[in-house]
């Protein structure tokens, strides 16, 4: 065998070896997510694998959107709470946070994810945050190499924990949820291993600045719905809501039924609700515009309802609210 042939075979083997190793690592770690989910990939690694709902909001783009500017001008907002949060934590929601990922799980007797978990990406002054927490009676603790700040327990016994996960990344939740988030990342046993949920995330994350995905059946089971409603609801496995906020709001609500017959039933129910809405909204131009923007779609097990609310329609909402307030007065 000549040297040229040997080099060629070594090159081929290297390509095969690198690809197989990458695939194997991804297979065991549950990582290497979809391209479009990449912006939140590192945050999702902190979300425990048993979470039934995950949500994302691009705080930066929503805060800077034309819609918020218009709404802020039309409706006076209560900024006292925001200011209080800034004084207590040192975090300015408008400027310091880029985006957040929130997660929650339904009751699990073994390890409850009570209160949910929020992972926020932004610019945080660790020293200032820690000093502020100490001023307010907080305690600082280290857990598996991550610094955690526990707030003082309230009268009802609630205690919040903030952990510095990485530079510019914090987790907020109860002590248990934050510890489980750190464990999820360290053991690679995170929500990223849930390929079904990740596929939906990958699909909706690319064009929306706010979205949520969840296991509908798990949440409905915990929601203590009245038997009459629960028995008539078609079996839905996954739901997702995704929207893009800028001048207006465009979004899609999607449900994945367990089978095609259930999806057909759900489609009929949604059509009925839309027809009823159109009838009711005949005398109300704002509601009429809202109802007309609703479009049902989806094939097979998927039922989707998309909507687009232009800025003009949204501008009517504060006027309606004002008129309603005058009527009350």
């Amino acid at each position, binding site marked *: *065998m*000549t040297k*040229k*042939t040997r080099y*060629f*075979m070594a*090159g*081929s*083997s290297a*390509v*095969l070896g*690198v*690809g*197989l190793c*990458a*695939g*194997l*690592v*991804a*297979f*065991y*770690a*549950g*990582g*290497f*997510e*979809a*391209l*479009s989910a990449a912006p939140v990939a590192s945050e999702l690694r902190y979300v425990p694998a048993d979470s039934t709902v995950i949500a994302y909001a691009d705080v930066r783009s929503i805060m800077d959107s034309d819609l918020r500017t218009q709404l802020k001008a039309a409706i006076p907002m209560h900024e006292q709470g925001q200011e209080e949060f800034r004084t207590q934590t040192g975090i300015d929601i408008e400027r310091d946070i880029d985006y957040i990922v929130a997660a929650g799980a339904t009751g699990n007797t073994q390890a409850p994810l009570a209160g949910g978990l929020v992972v926020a990406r932004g610019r945080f002054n660790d020293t200032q945050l820690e000093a502020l927490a100490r001023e307010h009676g907080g305690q600082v603790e280290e857990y598996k190499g991550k610094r955690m700040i526990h707030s003082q327990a309230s009268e009802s016994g609630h205690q919040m924990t903030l952990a510095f996960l990485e530079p510019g990344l914090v987790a907020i939740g109860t002590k248990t949820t934050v510890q489980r988030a750190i464990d999820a990342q360290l053991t690679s046993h995170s929500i*990223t291993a849930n*390929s079904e949920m*990740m*596929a939906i995330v*990958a*699909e909706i994350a690319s064009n929306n600045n706010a979205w949520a995905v969840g296991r509908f059946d798990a949440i409905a089971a915990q929601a203590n719905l009245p038997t009459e409603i629960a028995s008539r609801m078609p079996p839905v496995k996954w739901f997702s809501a995704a929207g893009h906020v800028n001048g207006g709001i465009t979004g899609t609500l999607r449900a994945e039924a367990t089978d095609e017959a259930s999806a057909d039933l759900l489609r009929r129910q949604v059509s009925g609700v839309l027809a009823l809405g159109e009838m009711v909204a005949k005398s109300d131009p704002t509601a009429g515009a809202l109802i007309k923007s609703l479009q049902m*779609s989806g*094939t097979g097990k998927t039922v989707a309802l998309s909507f687009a609310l232009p800025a003009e329609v949204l501008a009517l909402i504060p006027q309606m609210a004002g008129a309603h307030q005058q009527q009350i007065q």
Partner: protein
Amino acid sequence: MMEPTTAMEPKTALAPRTPPPAPGYLTSSLRVMDLSIGEMLWSRRTVFMLLIVGAPVLIALILRALVSLGAPVLNGPNNIRMTGPGIFGLMIWIFYLRFTVPVLGVFYGTSLIADEVEDKTITYLFSRPIPRGAVLVGKYLAYLVSTIFVVLPSVMLVYLLVVPIQGSLGGSFLDLVKDLALLALGLSVYGAVFAFIGAKFKRPLLIGLVFIFGWEQVAIVLPGYLKYFTVAYYIQGLVPHAMPNDGAMSLIQNMLRETPSLATALLGLAVVWAVSLALATRVVERREYVLEQ
């Protein structure tokens, strides 16, 4: 007392030299393989092979670039959105299983002996003290190594480029391993079949092309037992991806599709491979190749 002999004394008789023992079948095959790999890899045929396996990589690269730039290339008909793993599955079917594997099998398999005959170099190989069958087996092994080392890295590059588009590398890893094994199996079985055709018939390339683009395409969609006499029937039964509906033949095949079980498919392929290779070596050992002047 013996008289001492000196170095100057001329030798009166030379001891008869015994020739070294002829190498065994396996050693001979490996030696022929070692000689043939370089010849196969650096021939004009390799340019053709690189074009065949390079096309899917180029397409994957373009697709990845378009997706990164935000082009709506993933929106399929009927509001169906394609995902990376789905596209990878389609590429395995259309580019590799239906085209690359059988075509490389034909071009390389039929030329194992035919090239030596055409170049009039077969005499040199057959005059060596090695079994004639070992020449064919060695060349067959060289074909396998050459094609596997070109086709599988191409599949790997397509996997790394395409699967992360709305999919995950980890989620498709097991399918990739199955695909790689299946392609290697396909190359070995098609290679054995065409090695026999190349050793037995006068116009092996033509017969090979008729076999893959004529016989296999028709027999696999016909109801009845004819499909059992194709390689594609057993290979397609092992593919971990859904069969694409990309034409009338695919539609008919999907409607009449009868998928063999894993054991049946593996057994079928093993039988075809063993019988073809045994027949090919038998033909090479018995046939008198007359070189045209």
